[in-house]
């Protein structure tokens, strides 16, 4: 009722107030997006054009070669390394996390609250608190400077957030459904993967996306545990790229843009899952 009223009034005549509101909002959005626009303009510019006119002017001509040059200078490696790490970390992590979250929510587990608190500690611990012992551990296991080692670390550090999100969603799965399945003699494993997990599918998708983005963007563990250039993931590679080619802004911007594009696509297509996922985290 009230909704239809407001819609009607908004449609019939955009008064001065509404117009002003839109203008202010568009201006704010433009200012907010300036860094991204600058990045795009720099990436498609000729280096000479950039040196003369700076970042924030329309390019004289679009130079796509910046992208291919950046790609060949090393971004290709960084990109595929990030793809590899992310595509192993996310599914494995989600299986472990959802199993744990299921046990904590539906299996009448006496220690559920204590175990959950124990897991939550991981959300708050600064990564610096773990670096030295992890270095020793990874060294002992010969996992320094390997993508495998890095993936294992990512899975471990991903547990708290994953359990938090999955637990938030499993709690919304009605107990009655689980109880009914129990009465029918369904085993807990079956209940987990045939009932609870399918019901929590939106949560799984949300977590995939949040987790994928976080893994794609991770910097400090990669910085500490990857040593050779050909193994670097994107954020690390880009920062390194920027110190090595500090004056080639066009290529650097193109490299950054290559790193950002997958995130933008994920963001555009799965936007509502960001909201849902974060909602699950504070439920």
């Amino acid at each position, binding site marked *: 009722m009230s909704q239809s009223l407001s819609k009607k009034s*908004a449609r019939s005549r955009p008064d001065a107030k509404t117009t002003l509101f*839109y203008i202010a909002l568009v201006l704010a*959005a433009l200012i*907010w*997006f*300036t*860094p*991204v626009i*600058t*990045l795009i303009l720099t990436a498609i510019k000729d280096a000479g054009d950039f040196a003369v006119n*700076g*970042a*924030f002017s329309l390019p004289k001509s679009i130079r796509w070669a910046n992208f291919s040059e950046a790609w060949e200078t090393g971004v290709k490696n960084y990109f595929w390394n990030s793809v590899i790490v992310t595509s192993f970390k996310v599914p494995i992590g989600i299986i*472990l*996390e959802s*199993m*744990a979250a299921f*046990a*904590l929510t539906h*299996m009448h587990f006496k220690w*559920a609250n204590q*175990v959950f*608190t124990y*897991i*939550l*500690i991981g959300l*708050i*611990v*600064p*990564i*610096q*608190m*773990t*670096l*030295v*012992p992890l270095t020793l*551990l990874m060294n002992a296991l010969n996992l320094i400077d390997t993508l495998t080692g890095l993936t294992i*670390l990512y*899975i*471990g550090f991903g*547990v708290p957030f994953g*359990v938090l999100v999955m637990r938030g969603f499993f709690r919304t799965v009605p107990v009655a459904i689980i109880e009914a399945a129990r009465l029918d003699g369904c085993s*807990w494993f079956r209940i987990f993967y045939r009932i609870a997990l399918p019901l929590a599918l939106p949560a799984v998708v949300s977590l995939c996306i949040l987790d994928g983005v976080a893994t794609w*963007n*991770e*910097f*400090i563990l990669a910085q*500490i545990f990857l040593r050779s250039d050909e193994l670097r993931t*994107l*954020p690390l590679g*880009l*920062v390194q790229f*920027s110190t090595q080619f500090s004056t080639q*802004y066009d290529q*650097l911007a193109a490299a*950054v843009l290559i*790193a950002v594009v997958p995130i933008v696509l994920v*963001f555009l297509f799965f936007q509502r899952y*960001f909201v849902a996922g*974060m909602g699950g985290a504070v439920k």
Partner: protein
Amino acid sequence: MSSVLRKEGAVLPQTSKKSKIRDDRLRFLPWLFLAPALAIYTVVVVYPMVYSAYLSLFRWDGVSPAKVFVGLQNYWILLTQNDVFWIALKNNAIWLVAALLLPTSIGLGLAILLNSRFRGSHIFRSIFYFPAVLSLAVVGLIWTWIYHPDLGLLNQMLSALGLKVLTRNWLADPNIALYPVIIAATWSAVGLPMLLFLAGLQTIPEEMHEAAKVEGANRVQVFVYITFPLLRETTLIVLAITAINALKAYDIIYAMTNGGPANKTQLLSTWMYFLTYNYNQVGLGTAIAVVLFSLTLIFAIPYIRFMTRKV
């Protein structure tokens, strides 16, 4: 549910045995579900944490087999002889205050503006949230160009506006370098509070606002007396998460200033890295990590209490 089973068992002795076996299996089955996650989490996160605290009591270069037990001396050295530690601590404090004020209030303002449905509200939400999905290293790189002394947008704009006196080499000026970095960090930190506040606003029934308006309340009154009190829980979560994230800041410093100029933009997190990996002062490095963790706990304990309420 299980009590129903037990009652049946009391009536029929044969099933009582069966259900007891089932109960025993039940007791250990949750651990089986938890085992993989708990194992990797314990090895990768918890054990290193505890071991770091232990290492902070030693003088050690990280390489030689001999660790010298020195008790709390590392902490004493940090407090009395390590000037950069104090710079870092002060920077962390500034960073924390800025993080608690700026992204939270901007996020709340945007959430209130964008909560009402109007044409394009979704696009605006995406635009303002977008920086939050970028890697902080990337955010650092982008803003480094904006602050570039000659080619950067900021100085060019200032010159164009006739404010050439204000132009400077933003990230190389030891007196102010921290603040441009904080602005860049704020840009990327607004999205999360905005999202959480939007989610919080959506739980407030529209009728409450309507009722207040019918009673003659103006917008400010509606916000002060209705919206904000109902957002109390969301606000607490937002503040806690923002504070915890602020203390974790690292990538963006590394990408923008690398702690410089003259260590003036070091944070505890970056100074820990320098001491440990560049100067081989593992004892001092882990001691800083412990200090950082203790600071985090101040904000984290209420947060964890909240998250583990009612199960």
